[in-house]
C-alpha cells in the first residue's frame, strides 16, 4: 500500500500536505480509494466555508457507496479542486495527486497532532 512519508494522515483515511503558503492540501488515501472502488461522484466544500475538526467536508461516492471526507483540523476552505469533480476516476488513478480541497487551518500547530505515515500504516494494519 502506497503511504508517502512526507504526508500527514487521519484514521478516517484523509491525507494532508502542508503547503508553503500555510494552507493544507487534503485528499483521500490510496487505501481509501481502493476500498471504495471506482469513484463516480465527488462533492466538495465551498471556498470560504468554516469547518470544525472532524466535520464532514466533502463526499466521495463510488459505484457502491457514499463516504464522507472529514476536515482533519479546524479551518476555512481555501480552494476546491474542480478537476476531480469533473473526473472522479483520477482519484483512483493517483490518490495523492488528485487532491480534493485546501484548508487554511485556524491553528497550524494542530497539524502536528495528526498521524504520520507510520501511524497511518498501523491504523490500516488494524482494520
Amino acid at each position: 500500500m502506497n503511504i508517502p512519508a512526507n504526508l500527514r494522515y487521519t484514521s478516517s483515511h484523509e491525507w494532508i500536505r502542508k503547503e508553503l503558503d500555510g494552507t493544507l492540501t487534503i485528499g483521500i488515501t490510496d487505501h481509501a480509494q481502493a476500498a471504495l472502488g471506482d469513484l463516480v461522484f465527488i462533492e466538495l466544500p465551498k471556498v470560504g466555508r468554516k469547518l470544525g475538526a472532524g466535520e464532514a467536508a466533502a463526499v466521495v461516492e463510488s459505484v457502491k457507496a457514499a463516504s464522507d471526507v472529514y476536515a482533519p483540523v479546524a479551518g476555512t476552505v481555501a480552494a476546491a479542486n474542480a478537476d476531480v469533480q469533473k473526473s472522479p476516476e483520477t482519484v483512483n488513478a493517483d490518490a495523492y495527486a488528485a487532491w480534493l480541497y485546501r484548508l487554511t487551518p485556524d491553528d497550524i500547530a494542530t497539524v502536528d497532532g495528526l498521524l504520520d505515515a507510520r501511524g497511518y500504516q498501523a491504523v490500516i494494519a488494524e482494520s
Partner: protein
Amino acid sequence: MSKTTPLNATHRALGARMVDFGGYDMPVNYGSQIDEHHAVRDDAGMFDVSHMRVVDLDGEGARDFLAHALANDVARLGTPGKALYSCLLREDGGVLDDLIAYWRGGDRFRLVVNAGTADKDIAWLRTLADRTGARVDLAPRADLALVAVQGPNARAKLWRALPGSEAATASLAPFNAATFTRDRVEYFIARTGYTGEDGFEIALPATHVEALWTALIEAGVKPCGLGARDTLRLEAGMNLYGQDMDEAVSPLESGLGWTVDRRAPRDFVGRAALERAPAARTLVGLVLEDGGGILRAHQRVSTPKGDGEITSGTFSPTMQRSIALARVPVGVAPGDRVMVAVRDKTLAARVVKPPFVRNGKVLV
C-alpha cells in the same frame, strides 16, 4: 466465518477484493468494477455464482408439487431444458425467494436459488412436501459449482473454452438449457443470466470449475465481481432479492406481477393472499436528471401520489448517470417527474419503465 466457493483461492490469486455476500466470501471486483461492467456489455465477462444453490427436485409428484409451490406456472415448461423465472411465496404473499426452475425431462426438475435464502427455501419446500404428501425428492447439490459467462461474445468464447459444447448449445433459445458431457464431466448449460446480455450460466462439478475458469480466461473472458454484477442487473431492470423485494412485500408491489401466473385455476401458495390485497405500490425505474449525487437504496422519493422509497440505486456505467428502482404509490407512471432526497439535497428524477439497458443498448 464466511463460507467459500470452490474458486476462492483462484479469486485471491487474481487479486480480487473479497466481501461477504449471502454468507459467502465473494469477489466484489478484481480491480475496476467499471471495467468489468463494460467488458460484459461490450465483449464477455464471467462471474463465479457458486454461492447460489442448485436443488434437484425429482419424483413422480415433482411437477404437481412445483405447480403448488411456485407463483409462476410450471405448465409453461413444455419442452425439456426449458427454464422459468418464479417467486417462491409465503402463504401471506410475501416473497421468500426468487429462483429459476428448469425442467430436465420426465419427472426431473432443477431449481437455482439465492445463497442467503437457500437453507430457508429448502426447509420450506420440505415442509410443503410433507404437508401435501408430494412424492418428490429434494437434493441440494453442494457438489456443483456455477459460472455465469455473459456478454455479446460470451457464447462464442465458451465454445472455444469448452470444445464440443457448441454443437450441444448453439441452437439453444434464450431461457433454455442443455446438458453437455465431455470426458465424463457433465455440464448443465443454460442460456440465462442476470446482466441483460446474451450468455450462459453453467452448472458443473465443483472439481472441474477451476479448469473451466482458466480455459475461459484463456479464451478472453474477463473475471468480474459482484460489484459489476449489481450494476449490470440494475441496468437490466432485474430485482435483487433482499433489496428490491423480501418476505415483507408482495411480488405485485415488486415489479414481478408478470411472474405470478393466475390464468389457470391453480392453487399455489400465496394466491389467496394476493387476491385479497390489491397492490397499493409499484416498482418503477428512476433516472436522475440532475447531477449532484447518486441515487441509493432507502432514499425517500416524493411523488404527486405520495411518498415512496428507492430499493436499489447506483451509478450506471453504461448511461453515465445515476439510476434506481423505487417502490412508489400506484399511479406514478413513466414520464412523471419525482423528487429524491439525496443526502442534504432534493434532486429531480424521471420515472421510466425498466429495463434501462438491454443487449448493450440504452432503452430509456
